[in-house]
């Protein structure tokens, strides 16, 4: 049955070009049912989404032209949906071209095409993973990817209290928001002071909590210590209590009028009350103390796990060689701990970089700073929150979000390149 000059036949090219109109290629390959399906799909896609694509893409470019007909934010939303739908359509279109080409090639090579029954089987087999993925993927697109796209676009508009639909239109303004943040005095001053406090906060708070965690874990790992289990349970406690509860309790304890720190503790030692909530410096000190309390148990638990897996022989050998306790710690314990928990340590830094809860619940980012749009303990994420919900500076908040995300993603990428998931063949 095999044609002698199979290699010269050009079914694949013909099927491919015919398929530029979806379905024709399949028709040419005599797969009528499939051809019918593609034609119906193409037609219904065009009919169903014609208006959406038309208005959406127009809206995305112009963000509306006249009031009160156009609502810029709705147009932006529709625009993103239109682009997503278009991408989906293009995927199916590419599948159609690919399928026509593939089956044309099979005919060129003289291979029998799949019967309808086999095709059905094929769809079920290859389609099953997509079927399993689809609920999660749709959710991800709408609640995670969609908002991210929205923020990225928003950063290039002038959406704020004064350009707020439905009363006003929003316009594209290019990189103006970023230029403002770095050039306009009030924005630049605020941005630099918030960013520098964010960096200082991240560095000090995280390092302190890691140090305390490792120190206590090593201390409790001594063999001749009693009540270990009880102590360990107590030391884990701050991790077990939900953080928002503890932070609010601390906000009460540091309160200047009724808090226990000033009234009981400091008074007991005869120290004058300290303005924990109204002085920027003391508010920052209080925040670092609170975060150390909240954060060390996690490190403590991780390090305890690592310590229990260090083989005893290492220490015995060191003792025979006459090493002191400090030497053993420096050259055996510490390197092993750091090696084992390095990825977790980095996520601790990125966690504190975005630690909204402790900043907001303790003092709302306050005390306020004269001449700035942020409070003196505001970190980037809490500043974004107040820009969005209090001063309605949506576009500026989006621009700051993009800067923040760039920082977080580059740190995270740097970390993930070092972990094993990138290196192992079959992982991906």
């Amino acid at each position, binding site marked *: 049955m095999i044609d002698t000059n199979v290699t010269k036949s050009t079914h694949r090219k013909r099927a491919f070009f015919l398929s530029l109109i979806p379905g024709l290629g399949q028709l040419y390959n005599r797969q009528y049912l499939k051809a019918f399906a593609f034609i119906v799909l193409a037609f219904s896609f065009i009919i169903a989404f014609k208006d959406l694509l038309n208005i959406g893409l127009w809206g995305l470019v112009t963000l509306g032209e006249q009031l009160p007909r156009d609502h810029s934010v709705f147009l932006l*939303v529709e625009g993103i949906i239109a682009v997503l739908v278009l991408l989906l359509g293009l995927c199916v279109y590419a599948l159609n071209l690919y399928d026509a080409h593939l089956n044309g090639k099979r005919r060129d090579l003289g291979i029998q095409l799949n019967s309808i029954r086999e095709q059905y089987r094929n769809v079920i087999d290859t389609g099953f993973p997509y079927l399993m993925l689809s609920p999660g993927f749709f959710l991800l697109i709408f609640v995670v990817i969609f908002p991210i796209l929205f923020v990225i676009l928003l950063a290039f508009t002038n959406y704020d209290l004064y350009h707020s639909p439905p009363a006003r239109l929003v316009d594209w303004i290019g990189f103006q928001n970023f230029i403002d943040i770095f050039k306009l005095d009030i924005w630049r001053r605020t941005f630099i002071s918030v960013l520098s406090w964010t960096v200082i906060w991240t560095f000090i708070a995280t390092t302190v909590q890691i140090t305390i965690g490792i120190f206590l874990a090593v201390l409790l790992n001594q063999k001749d210590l009693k009540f270990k289990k009880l102590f360990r349970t107590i030391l884990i406690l701050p991790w077990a209590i939900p953080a928002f509860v503890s932070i609010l309790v601390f906000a009460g304890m540091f309160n200047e009028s009724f808090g226990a720190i000033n009234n009981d503790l400091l008074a007991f030692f005869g120290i004058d009350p300290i303005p924990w909530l109204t002085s920027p410096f003391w508010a920052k000190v209080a925040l670092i103390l609170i975060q150390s309390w909240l954060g060390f148990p996690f490190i403590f*638990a991780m390090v305890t796990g690592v310590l229990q897996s260090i083989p005893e022989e290492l220490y015995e050998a060191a003792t025979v060689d006459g090493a002191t306790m400090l030497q053993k710690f420096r050259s055996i314990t510490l390197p092993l701990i750091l090696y084992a928990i390095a990825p977790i340590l980095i996520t601790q830094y990125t966690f504190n970089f975005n630690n909204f809860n402790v900043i907001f619940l303790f003092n709302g980012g306050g005390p306020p700073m004269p001449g700035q749009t942020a409070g003196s303990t505001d970190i980037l994420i809490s500043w974004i929150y107040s820009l969005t919900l209090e001063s309605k500076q949506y576009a500026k908040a989006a621009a700051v979000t993009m800067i923040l995300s760039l920082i977080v993603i580059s740190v995270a990428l740097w970390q993930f390149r070092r972990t094993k998931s990138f290196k192992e063949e079959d992982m991906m």
Partner: protein
Amino acid sequence: MNMKRQKFIRLTLSYIAILIAVTIIIYPVLWIVGSSFNPGNSLSGSTIIPKNATLKHYQELFDLSSSKYLLWYWNTLKICTITMILSVTMIALMGYSFSRYRFIGRKNGLMTFLILQMIPNFAALIAIYVLAVQTKLIDTHLALILLYTGGLLPMNTWLAKGYFDTIPKELDESARIDGAGHFRIFWQIILPLAKPILAVIALFSFITPFADFILAKVILRSEEKFTLAVGLYNLVAKQFGGEFTKFAAGAVLIAIPISLLFLSLQRYLISGLTAGGTKG
């Protein structure tokens, strides 16, 4: 003799350091428990062990006509449970298909998940707020549940996929030869074997919405829809400490069950975290 003295000094110093740490941890706990039994509404002039201890504030919290506390508790449990069920289902399905099937788009999908898990989902705060307002989903629990579930997917799918990878593929193949379909293999053979990781994921997806404050604060507006985190915050923020004792009672009632749950399941949580090696 010298050795013994050295050991004595070392142990004494260790005990002192540990006791200091224990005191610092226990002190706020005792303070808040003490405050919750304090007869007055505010704390001025109170001592850590109140003189006329009272259960009044607990009764106030349980009084449905004057306090929404029980409602908040119910809202939180409802949101957490639904989030947990939804996300465990989706994560199991996605982790399984990423682990077992080789399909077009698999690599890109996994890559997308890896990148998405790096971005905290409240980074898109403005978008979430604006979109929720525009779609009328603001002030609904549905919005929160969807957001929490979506936020949990990327990282935990990787976690689940990693675990599925360790279950030998021969099991699937022999079942397929015996005539089992795709879904049956997943449901009857692989899922029962993956119970440990599913338990860890369930725990994560229950605790994450419970501990979240920022998304709930952005989405929820009316007091009867609040979760515990937002409600408790309002109890403190509204009155500048005027109802602090009532807040204290509320805090104690949250902290006790959650800490007990946490301490009893701590082992699993740590194993999950080291396996994922990611969030804290």
